[in-house]
């Protein structure tokens, strides 16, 4: 130390100087302090501000000792505060964490105004997979593709990691202090607006009402781009209360759906899919009528389907109501297929259990009428109130907020998730969303000056005055086992028909706005899995073109990828088209959710923002649009190649998907499969059968094509995302794919998949959207017993296990691709580039994603973040290696280890593959086919069982159950 007399460094003073500063200012002050000689002296001095250790008195000495000992203990909590970067073994192992052993935590995935109970698989504190929670009523063990993909969002490279103030990193303290200051300054909360997505958490609802108690004038605005406004308003008209219908499809014999896509886009879709398919699997089956304005998976499952314009949905419902004798309902403004409605009505009338479902996009009147119809039919539906009351429509609430902002009446705006600047109807002002890494719950609580953890908050809500052990059990199971209070819906208002809104009448072209099948309202636009997941009906990735019917395409001379200009009001959108078989005529479907401008590196430049046409007046559909073929020029091409994973839509008359009518199948059955002829002696097996013999059965009768299995497989098996460029080249990596074919039922005869869609004879049938049937087939490695891929591999990198698995030995593979050429099912996937490590490049739309692309450190950070999502039990494949479905061999091995520890055989149902686990309709069953009592063996003994391309005699371990349809004879025979 220098002899120069220095002022004492006063820590307290510095703290005060810094306390009220944030951002740049904070750091600048910090620098000023740090550069003073006093500070340097203070840092260097072992005993600051003291000339000798003797100046410490006894009490201080004891204090220091105590603090030192405590801080020594704190070292063990390092990972709580600092990122753990080195892999070191635990010295003191935390309870419950066994390296390499997964832990499953129950939680809830909220989406589309419903909650799905899920279990999150976590390795060493690193969540890697989401699975359905079997004890949760909305999941029953299954999920949809959204739930599967949401785990990737956790590792989104573009996630906000800090609190920002005016684009500069700040702190929670500053944020909360300033927000609270601003809130306290208001007059009882006047001018405080809290903008949130529809609130589903009772705890958050309680916190919000707590906040509103403190600030009575504060307004909570709930807004979702896919909302239930029409549903609630319809209920309000019919019953005088804003209630959500909950359709119970369990055991329902006849379902009539009006734009109600209960398989994918309605709340509680997973539960409804399961209930629907459980009934569908029975001998008597159920019957599904669908009237829809845009092709959906529910329409694809329908026994009878009518494609109509969005404005005609209401007319169809009115016709049905009249047929069923609901009083006071006037005829619709549009023509309907009277024979179809009559058949539907008589079928509904005579069925034991039935329901009429109306989708969120249908008009207010449609929902009100549906209340009356279901009341008249005693439909299988109950009603429940929203978690947080929504007295006005969400759009009106948002409009109110907009008006307040424009009028300068908003003092504090808290945005808890959501992105109205993107997905709100156009012509709304821009609002900068605040990203945060506190849960919304914690934030709202903190704003009330009593910050607590989410755990405490939830416990306080559900556990106060109750048994703590019970609460812990609920938390563990992810399900609260208190019976829901049955909401007895107010009686139907008898004169409601008079107060229905005026029907929309439209004669020209209409636009249907629908959420993107994989990106939803845009929240998954930066999720590579979701961008690359083929949209179930179009098999399209990375884009959201306008969907049009084949007739319109033919009339306008358009083919896939050609640009059109869609003009609605003053806005014009230039967008490519995708010709979709079964799409209603004179309707253009625009899927919103893609084309976000501020989205992150994955969704960057992907798709088009169609929200510019979604004005407040046409939220779900809009009339009066014009579509014109876009002109191409030297500088601007009028064509965009669409990254479709399937470009051929007909089965070419081949025996691929077998479909029969229920009654005819019951009478005639299916041709029995012949035993294949082999050049080898029959007793000679390709490999020694030893131990359980794994096999799979896929029931085409209940497969809805929802793609949950595809995403589950991607999550489970570390399947990389490759980007649009490579999908265009035909290199998608999904181990599991869902083939979608169109078949034509010409003249109402039995649907025969052998009809050719491309042949000119069937052109008129293809032009008739009602004549087209859609069939789906999930396909992964068939695990052939006589696998064509095996003998051709020059290095024996693909071989058979004694349990019948066709195994891929990655580290032996040299990558000749001969196996893939020789695979009749084309289920093998090749790492043409180093896809796994090139993940930061996968967003590139046009540039060649080579490794020499300069990647920013941000992208590299994203890459290291993405590494955390890898399932540690599955090898990550490098460049030049072939891969394919393994039947989730890691799960088989896990079950085997458990069974061996207990010295027993693996039980039936103990091994559940990722696809099987996710499947909402329970179409996939896996197990030991050597055990004749196993579920899979029983299914393989089913009369509907058949082998895909059986004549090749590859002896596939995966077999299919033929699809059955249950058409109404009244409609079939005419």
């Amino acid at each position, binding site marked *: 130390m220098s002899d120069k007399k220095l002022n004492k460094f006063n820590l307290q003073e510095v703290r005060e100087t810094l306390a009220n500063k944030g951002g740049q200012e904070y750091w600048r002050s910090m620098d000023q302090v740090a550069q003073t000689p006093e500070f340097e002296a203070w840092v260097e001095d072992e005993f600051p501000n003291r000339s000798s250790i003797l100046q410490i008195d006894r009490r201080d000495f004891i204090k220091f000792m105590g603090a030192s000992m405590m801080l020594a203990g704190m070292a063990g909590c390092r990972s709580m505060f600092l990122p753990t970067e080195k892999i070191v073994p635990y010295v003191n192992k935390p309870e419950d964490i066994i390296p390499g052993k997964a832990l499953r935590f129950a939680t809830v995935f909220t989406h589309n105004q419903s909650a799905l109970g899920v279990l999150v698989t976590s390795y060493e504190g690193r969540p890697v997979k989401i699975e359905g929670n079997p004890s949760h009523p909305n999941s029953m063990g299954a999920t949809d593709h959204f739930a599967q993909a949401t785990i990737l969002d956790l590792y989104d490279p573009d996630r906000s990691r800090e609190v920002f103030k005016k684009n500069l990193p700040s702190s929670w303290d500053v944020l909360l202090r300033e927000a609270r200051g601003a809130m306290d300054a208001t007059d009882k909360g006047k001018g405080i607006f809290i903008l949130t997505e529809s609130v589903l958490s009772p705890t958050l609802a309680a916190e919000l009402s707590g906040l509103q108690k403190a600030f009575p004038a504060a307004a909570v605005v709930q807004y979702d781009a896919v909302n239930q406004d029409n549903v609630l308003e319809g209920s309000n008209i019919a019953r005088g209360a804003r209630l959500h219908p909950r359709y119970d499809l369990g055991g329902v014999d006849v379902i009539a759906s009006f734009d109600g896509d209960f398989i994918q886009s309605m709340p509680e879709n997973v539960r409804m899919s399961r209930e629907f398919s459980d009934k569908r699997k029975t001998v008597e089956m159920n019957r599904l009528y669908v009237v829809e304005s845009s092709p959906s998976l529910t329409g694809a499952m329908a026994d009878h389907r009518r494609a109509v314009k969005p404005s005609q949905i209401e007319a169809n419902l009115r016709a049905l109501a009249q047929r069923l004798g609901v009083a006071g309902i006037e005829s619709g403004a549009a023509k309907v297929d009277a024979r179809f409605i009559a058949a539907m009505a008589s079928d509904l009338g005579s069925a034991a259990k039935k329901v009429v479902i109306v989708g969120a996009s249908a008009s207010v009147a449609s929902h009100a009428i549906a209340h009356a119809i279901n009341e008249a039919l005693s439909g299988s539906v109950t009603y429940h109130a929203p978690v947080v009351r929504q007295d006005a429509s969400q759009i009106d609430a948002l409009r109110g907020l907009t008006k307040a902002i424009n009028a300068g009446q908003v003092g504090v705006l808290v945005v808890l998730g959501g992105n109205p600047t993107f997905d709100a109807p156009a012509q709304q002002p821009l609002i900068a969303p605040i990203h945060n890494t506190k849960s919304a719950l914690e934030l709202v609580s903190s704003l009330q000056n009593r910050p607590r953890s989410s755990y405490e908050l939830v416990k306080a809500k559900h556990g106060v005055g109750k048994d703590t052990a019970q609460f812990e059990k609920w938390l563990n199971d992810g399900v609260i086992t208190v019976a829901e209070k049955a909401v007895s819906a107010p009686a139907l208002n008898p004169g409601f028909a008079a107060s229905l809104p005026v029907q929309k009448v439209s004669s020209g072209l209409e636009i249907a706005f629908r959420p993107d099948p994989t990106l939803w309202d845009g929240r998954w636009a930066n999720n590579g899995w979701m961008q690359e997941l083929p949209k179930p009906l179009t098999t399209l990735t990375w884009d959201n073109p306008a969907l049009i019917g084949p007739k319109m395409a033919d009339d306008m001379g358009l083919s896939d990828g050609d640009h059109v200009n869609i003009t609605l009001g003053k806005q014009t959108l230039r967008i490519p088209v995708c010709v979709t078989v079964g799409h209603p005529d004179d309707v253009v479907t625009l899927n919103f959710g893609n084309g976000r401008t501020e989205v992150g590196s994955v969704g960057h430049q992907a798709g088009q923002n169609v929200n510019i046409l979604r004005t407040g007046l046409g939220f779900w559909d809009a009339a009066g649009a014009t579509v014109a073929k876009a002109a191409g020029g030297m500088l601007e091409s009028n064509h965009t190649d669409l990254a479709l994973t*399937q*470009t*051929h*839509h*007909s*089965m*070419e*008359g*081949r025996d*691929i998907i077998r479909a029969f009518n229920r009654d005819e199948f019951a009478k005639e059955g299916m041709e029995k499969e012949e035993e294949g002829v082999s050049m080898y002696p029959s007793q000679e097996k390709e490999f020694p059968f030893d131990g359980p013999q794994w096999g799979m059965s896929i029931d085409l009768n209940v497969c809805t094509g929802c793609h949950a299995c595809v995403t589950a497989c991607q999550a489970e098996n570390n399947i990389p995302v490759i980007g649009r460029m*490579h999908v265009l*080249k*035909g*290199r*998608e990596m999904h181990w599991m*794919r869902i*083939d*979608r*074919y169109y078949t034509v039922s010409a003249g109402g005869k039995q649907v025969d998949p052998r009809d050719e869609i491309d042949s000119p004879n069937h052109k008129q049938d293809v032009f008739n959207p009602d004549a087209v049937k859609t069939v789906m*087939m999930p*396909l992964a490695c068939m695990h052939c017993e006589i696998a*064509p891929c095996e*003998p*051709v*591999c*020059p*290095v*024996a990198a693909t071989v058979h296990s004694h349990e019948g698995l066709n195994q891929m030995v990655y580290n*032996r*593979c*040299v*990558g*000749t*691709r*001969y196996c*893939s*050429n*020789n695979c*009749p*099912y*084309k289920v*093998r*996937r*090749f*790492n*043409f*580039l*180093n896809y796994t490590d090139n993940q930061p490049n996968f967003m590139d739309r046009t540039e060649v994603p*080579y*490794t*020499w692309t300069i990647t920013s450190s941000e992208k590299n950070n994203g890459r290291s973040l993405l590494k955390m999502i890898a399932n540690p039990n599955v090898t990550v494949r490098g*460049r*030049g*290696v*072939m891969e394919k479905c393994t039947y989730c061999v890691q799960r088989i091995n896990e079950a085997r280890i458990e069974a061996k520890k207990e010295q027993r055989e693996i039980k039936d149902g103990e091994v559940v593959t990722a696809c099987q686990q996710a499947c909402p309709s329970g179409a996939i069953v896996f197990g030991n086919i050597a055990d004749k009592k196993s579920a899979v063996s029983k299914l393989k003994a089913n009369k509907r069982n058949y082998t895909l*391309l059986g004549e*090749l005699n590859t002896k596939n371990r995966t077999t299919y159950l033929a699809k059955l349809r249950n058409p109404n004879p009244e409609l079939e025979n005419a």
Partner: protein
Amino acid sequence: MAVIDKEPEIKPYEPLIEGNPSYGDFDESIGRLILSHAAHSKAWLKWLGILFMGVNLLLLSVGVLLWQGIGVWGNNQPVGWGFDIINFVWWIGIGHAGTLISAVLLLVRQQWRNSINRFAEAMTIFAVMCAGMYPLLHTGRPWVAYWLFPYPNILAMWPNFRSPLVWDVFAVSTYMTISILFWFMGLIPDFATIRDKASSMPMKKIYGLLAMGWRGSAKHWHRYEAAYIILAGISAPLVLSVHSIVSLDFAVSIVPGWNNTLFPPYFVAGAVFAGFAMVLTFAIPVRKIYKLDHLITDLHLDWMAKIMLTTGLIVFFGYLLEVYYAFYSGSEWEMFMTSNRFSGPYMVLFWSLWLFNGIIPQLLWFPKVRRNTTMLMIISFGISIGMWLERFVIIPMSLHRDFLPSSWGMYYPTIWDFGMFAGTIFFFVFMMFLFIRFLPFINIFEVKDLWLKMKHQGHVPAVAGKGGEEN
């Protein structure tokens, strides 16, 4: 004898060597091309420079491929093999003429082969070099491609002997080895000639080394003849086996359009067909530029054209049989595959194949055409294209639409596919340029031998259609 007859109709006894040269003239006309750079026009060096740039294109294409991976090519699902295997089969096929000319024609004592065999053998070797690059580089991980060889290792892991790709490894490596040995052995007496004629010390040293102490003694010649015949005996079956085995890559598989028992003979005929076309494509300009039409006579061209016509007919018959069998089989996959060739998205390539390999070669029935170098050049060039198209039709066109329509796709090669293909062509021509400059590209001693027989035993044994010296 030794009458220069330029009349179009073929005289029964037409000489294989024209003019009345002395033995020294042979040494001179062939040897001067090596010993004196003046024998080559300035254009040679210019062209060599251009070709060298082309070789660099090959290196660049291979470099990009190794750095990035197969993804730089157009291969995809379902078309796992594209330009890589097309070009492999194409190059292997081109090599076949060399082996046929040097081995098979030697064994059946067709002495007209003497002035073209060296040339054709060199083509074989360079073509196999080009071909060999592809199986190695088409693997996803070329650095472990050696696993295809059966080498002793600690894992006791052998290649899968059931795989035709392993058979390929044996077939092609055997072929390469035998071809080089055969070629080199045949060169030894000529190396000695060059050594003896060379005036500069480096040339004497280099060719002296290559001549391996050849002194031309009767004992040497005796052993040489015996060894040469043995090697010819070994390599003659290779003409049949190599391309048969290559064809098994396809025939063994399950893919419609590949799974075809017709392939081995039809591939062999196709290989000879392509090989002769390539020999002609090179021989015609070379004999013109280096004024060698007294050694590579119109008669040679005529006979090569006849072989082309014969093998071309076999190949075309094969095409027709493929169509017939597809429909005769009753298999819906085969029938679809054939109609997809006729009218699918790649139909232009398919019909071009029939045009180049089936229709145009029929002109060779006309003697005038067989002796018209321009026409021959055009037809041969067309056949080279046609044979390439044949492999395109078989490989990507069968793969792109197989069993499940959902997996159908299109194959579009990329700039690196073309880059590497063009690069191998440049490499091939580059090697031929070096060959013409530094090695005797016509077999000096065999031509002398032929000349001797023509002079002393009358012209009978040494002319067309009359077989060997035994006659």
